[in-house]
């Protein structure tokens, strides 16, 4: 495996690993790790570092919705143009073009349901290319970013075993 891939595998598991620990885990030296991280960022492989948050456990937390969007394209308007206009809204947390019954899957983050509804009905639905939206509010999150949202399992192994 090349250095960038090894560093990426570590960061994808835990973006808070410091350079020395990544070096120890990959067998690279610290300078090579720093170079790999710079290259991953410069090449647009790594776009940022965020916490995986369970907003349900935060006072005055946030609400999340998955919105299906159908669009109609014309000579001047392709998926790229529509995506660009939708993505510019800060409420849009993630935006994907998907295969299947609808075109875009949009993850929207808002303060509350009304906030999200207003955003969809007032900002997204009226866009000329948009023909239909279906909003699914997320009721409960069980797993995100590859991490189960549950109270940690106790380690029930014997503390010392052969």
């Amino acid at each position: 495996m090349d250095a960038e891939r090894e560093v990426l595998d570590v960061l994808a598991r835990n973006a808070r690993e410091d350079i020395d620990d990544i070096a120890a885990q990959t067998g690279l030296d610290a300078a090579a790790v720093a170079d790999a991280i710079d290259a991953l960022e410069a090449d647009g492989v790594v776009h940022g570092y965020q916490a995986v948050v369970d907003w349900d456990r935060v006072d005055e937390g946030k609400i999340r919705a998955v919105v299906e969007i159908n669009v109609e394209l014309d000579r001047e308007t392709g998926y790229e143009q529509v995506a660009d206009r939708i993505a510019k809204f800060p409420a849009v947390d993630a935006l994907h073009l998907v295969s299947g019954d609808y075109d875009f899957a949009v993850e929207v983050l808002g303060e509350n349901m009304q906030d999200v509804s207003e955003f969809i009905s007032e900002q997204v639905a009226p866009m000329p290319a948009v023909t239909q939206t279906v909003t699914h509010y997320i009721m409960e999150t069980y797993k995100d970013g590859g991490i189960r949202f549950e109270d940690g399992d106790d380690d029930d192994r014997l503390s010392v075993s052969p």
Partner: protein
Amino acid sequence: MRLSDRARTLPESGIRKFFELAEARDDVISLGVGEPDFSAPWSARTAAIDSLERGKTSYTANRGMAALRERIADHHERYAQSYDPAEEVLVTTGASEAVDLAFRALVDPGDTVAVHEPTYISYGPGIELAGGERLTVPTRAADDFALTRESLEAAGAADADLLVCCYPNNPTGATMTDEELAEVAAFCRDNEIRVVADEIYAALTYGEDHASIATQPGMRERTVVVNGFSKAYAMTGLRLGYALGPTEAIDAMNRIHQYTMLSAPTTPQYAAIEALDRCDGEVAEMVEEYNRRRRLVVSRFNEMGLDTFEPGGAFYAFPECGGDDEAFAEELLEAQGVAVVPGSVFGEGGEGHLRVSYATSMRELKEATDRIAAFVEGR
């Protein structure tokens, strides 16, 4: 009740004392655990659950389910091992049963069984229960704990009837290459020594793929290979292992097994079929994670001045602590709440070392190695 001499004289395992010391505290980070911190792959667990829902709770064939034996035989092609699933594979209740059966099937009272040490603690008692005499062959830190022809000769193993060969090794993490095994194989052929090869950690190697002594010329017919699902598939508690060997050895082992165990437990056999069919990817991910931890642990021990050779397999590092390893481990537990197992528990050659298991989370490994570094500095 009057007990048999055999039971009364069987010694308590040296690991017991450290288990009790560690259990007495509730703030311990344990690097003393000899099993994975992962759970079995979920699809293997669901296969076990499904089998229960379908009412699959009867015995299986003595040798294990045919579908499982076929997959085991296929799986071992990756180690260049070729066994007939009908005649040369026996599914057992953990690899432990397979080791016990091999001793009972291959050892006559008074036979000499050579065991390299330091090694896993169950071989000695198993040999004793089978009526054999254990001959210790110390391996050396200078050889990175590989078994050599010189150490076999020096220990007088030329007269042995059987050799136990456990690589990748618990507790050292040592592995052996084909070239190194060729020397040992030649020694066994020259002296007509049969081999029990405990290869339970074969799937957990970092760098070179596992090499088996059974694939050396002339060794297949004199070797029983033991393996299982515990370590690779994180299925320790499901107790499923197996033996591979020439027909006459497997037949003999099965003859004992049919009276003492009848068949290995049924539910885990369904989990094992699924594990072999679909869980290679998850094993590969576990191996990658162990490998990252291995590098971190080895580099941290070397940085704090406890020399540690690079272990090629299993999930143990074997740093040198110098002097009295038992005292070191006890004081470390007392002062810093970190449990490790003193190397001397694993026999000759282990003294002055510690077995450090990295089958624990990266966060705990960092915390534990920080504490050990503080302990070493203050010592």
